[in-house]
């Protein structure tokens, strides 16, 4: 089933900005992704604030492995596979909670919150005391690490350390939330299912070309809260948009797209990327932007990063939003992706501001989100049209701005400035192809190091 590397190279053309539609629906490609991406990459599991007390657990996912992330008695955090060492039953069925131990309900093996096998019914009588309990605990995730409260795991013991894996781009992506204060996750992780390929969902987070049309109805109907001048957003006038011809679509407000919509795209090693407005762009929007003026934020983000206000994706599937949320895209099948929304707020923020943030998050994204409702429709249909033999012969086009993107390197970041483009998406696909070849880590890093132009 393994695809030859030459075959993989044909699926993504960085030069032409073209993607073979097979990558969205071919089951063999999906299986290879499970091995070569999801069993190797550092994946976001949860935030430490979700499991404050010893025994607190949150059930997460790495590829198709179910993972228990558990706070330990010494306050450290462990992540282990939720599968019994005896004959594989899940040892925990709740999504989250607090446990004193994990009891397998099949034959009764019981594990400590650290995963150690403590009890085996009939250990003396049936096993004659010969089963070595120390060898049959819950399997620990190969590496677990915490970046400013964000917990990640990788199945690959030889993967570079998390901070190195994230690199300047990934760290900036997380700092764009982490540096807003003493962050905690608001209870309630929204989870829902979209019948789309995970890459179409990831591609879309960088896409600043779609909001004016996809989200036209939301922009017309007062979705954004009005709290002060700079944050008003409010209603965008769509009256001059001729929906029939669709040609020369330019919003009067010029907000979300148009000639004043300056963007900065950051391209990182291993496929991390950030795409969207800069803080001086007409499209810059943040409910509470004051955090950017703090010395800690300036120091952590650096002179380039402090002006980045777009959407980071930590390769492969962790989107950090400007609305202080993390949206995880969990591949279940080639045409089925689970979306998980984590919402973060500063513990010290005034109640009123906290409420505004939560209300905004609840209404904009998520299944009922005034924006996201209409996204799912596109992703599902775009995925469905990759299955027809004739439709599949057509490529996905990611050529916007291609060949004109000058890459500036500064402060460890590679960036392209300009108007709306498709560089970040294309970079993600290019990196995807390098991952899919199963390259050793150093070669993978080289193959995903940006050049001078794109």
């Amino acid at each position, binding site marked *: 089933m393994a695809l030859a590397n030459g075959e993989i190279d044909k699926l993504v053309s960085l030069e032409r900005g073209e993607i073979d539609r097979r990558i969205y629906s071919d089951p063999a490609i999906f299986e290879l992704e499970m091995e070569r991406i999801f069993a190797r990459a550092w994946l976001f599991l949860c935030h430490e604030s979700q499991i404050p007390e010893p025994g607190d657990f949150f059930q997460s996912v790495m590829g198709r492995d179910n993972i228990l992330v558990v706070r330990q008695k010494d306050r450290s955090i462990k992540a282990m596979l939720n599968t019994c060492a005896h004959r594989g039953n899940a040892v925990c*069925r*709740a*999504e*989250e*909670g*607090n446990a004193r131990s994990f009891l397998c309900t099949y034959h009764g093996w019981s594990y400590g919150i650290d995963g150690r096998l403590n009890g085996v019914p009939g250990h003396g009588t049936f096993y004659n005391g010969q089963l070595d309990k120390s060898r049959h605990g819950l399997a620990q995730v190969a590496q677990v690490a915490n970046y400013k409260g964000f917990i990640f795991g990788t199945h690959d013991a030889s993967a570079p350390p998390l901070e190195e894996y994230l690199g300047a781009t990934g760290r900036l992506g997380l700092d764009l939330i982490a540096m807003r204060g003493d962050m905690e996750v*608001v*209870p*309630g*992780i*929204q*989870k*829902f*299912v*979209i*019948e789309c390929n995970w890459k179409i969902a990831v591609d879309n987070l960088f896409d600043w070309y779609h909001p004016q049309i*996809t989200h*036209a*109805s*939301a922009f*017309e*109907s*007062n*979705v954004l809260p009005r709290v002060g001048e700079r944050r008003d957003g409010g209603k965008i006038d*769509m009256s001059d948009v001729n*929906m029939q011809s669709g040609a020369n679509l330019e919003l009067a407000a010029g907000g979300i797209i148009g000639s004043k919509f300056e963007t900065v795209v950051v391209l990182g090693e291993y496929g991390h990327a950030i795409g969207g407005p800069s803080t001086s762009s007409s499209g810059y929007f943040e409910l509470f932007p004051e955090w950017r003026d703090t010395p800690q934020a300036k120091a952590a983000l650096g002179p380039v990063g402090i002006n980045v206000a777009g959407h980071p994706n930590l390769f492969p599937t962790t989107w950090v939003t400007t609305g202080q949320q993390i949206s995880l895209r969990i591949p279940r099948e080639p045409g089925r992706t*689970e979306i998980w*929304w984590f*919402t973060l707020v500063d513990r010290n923020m005034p109640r009123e501001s906290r*409420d505004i943030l*939560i*209300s905004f*998050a*609840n*209404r904009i994204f*998520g*299944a*009922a989100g*005034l924006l*996201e*409702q*209409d996204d*799912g*429709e*596109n992703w*599902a249909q775009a995925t469905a049209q990759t299955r027809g033999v004739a439709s599949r012969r057509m490529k996905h086009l990611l050529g916007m701005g291609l060949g004109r993107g000058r890459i500036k390197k500064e402060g460890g970041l590679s960036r392209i400035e300009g108007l709306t483009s498709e560089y970040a998406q294309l970079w993600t696909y290019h990196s995807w192809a390098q991952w899919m070849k199963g390259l050793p880590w150093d070669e993978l890093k080289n193959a995903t190091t940006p050049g001078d132009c794109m």
Partner: protein
Amino acid sequence: MPNDNEARSSDSRIAAMLRDREVERFYYDEAALLDAHRYEEWLALFADDAHYFMPIRRTRTQRELDKEFTRPGEMAFFDDTREQLAARVAKLKTGRAWAEDPPSRTRHLITNVRVIRDDGRTLEVECNFHLYRTRLHSEETSWIGSRRDVLRRAGESFQIADRKIFLEQTVLLSRNLSNFF
């Protein structure tokens, strides 16, 4: 001949039955508005200070079932004031709400209506619902759950002052919630 007490109690039972019937009728009319996509008329059933809330539900052990649903102030699928509900209705009216254009086909079935409390001015009412939806060629969604409403008497009818919607799902098994419950 029934004595006075018996007559009184049978009067109050008849009154309660009539009231229950009115509440049911109110819900059936509401469901008919939604299924006919008459959203503005539907919105008019809500009081100005109404709260419309669908919490997130989580699979938890029996021991922690009190933490199954999120609460106001936490994350939710819906947590709307009436003004925010109005924005949703306005969105549907733009002609560019693609998730509902072509519109989904829905049927709201309302059952098991029970008046839990009635102080003369406000009623607390629980009911079960089945919202069946199909969309486009083959998308099919079935949501079953319960609602807990606070209804205010308003002339001959009622106003919805508070609605809590509890779905029998944790991971939402659909791509969006572009309909009302």
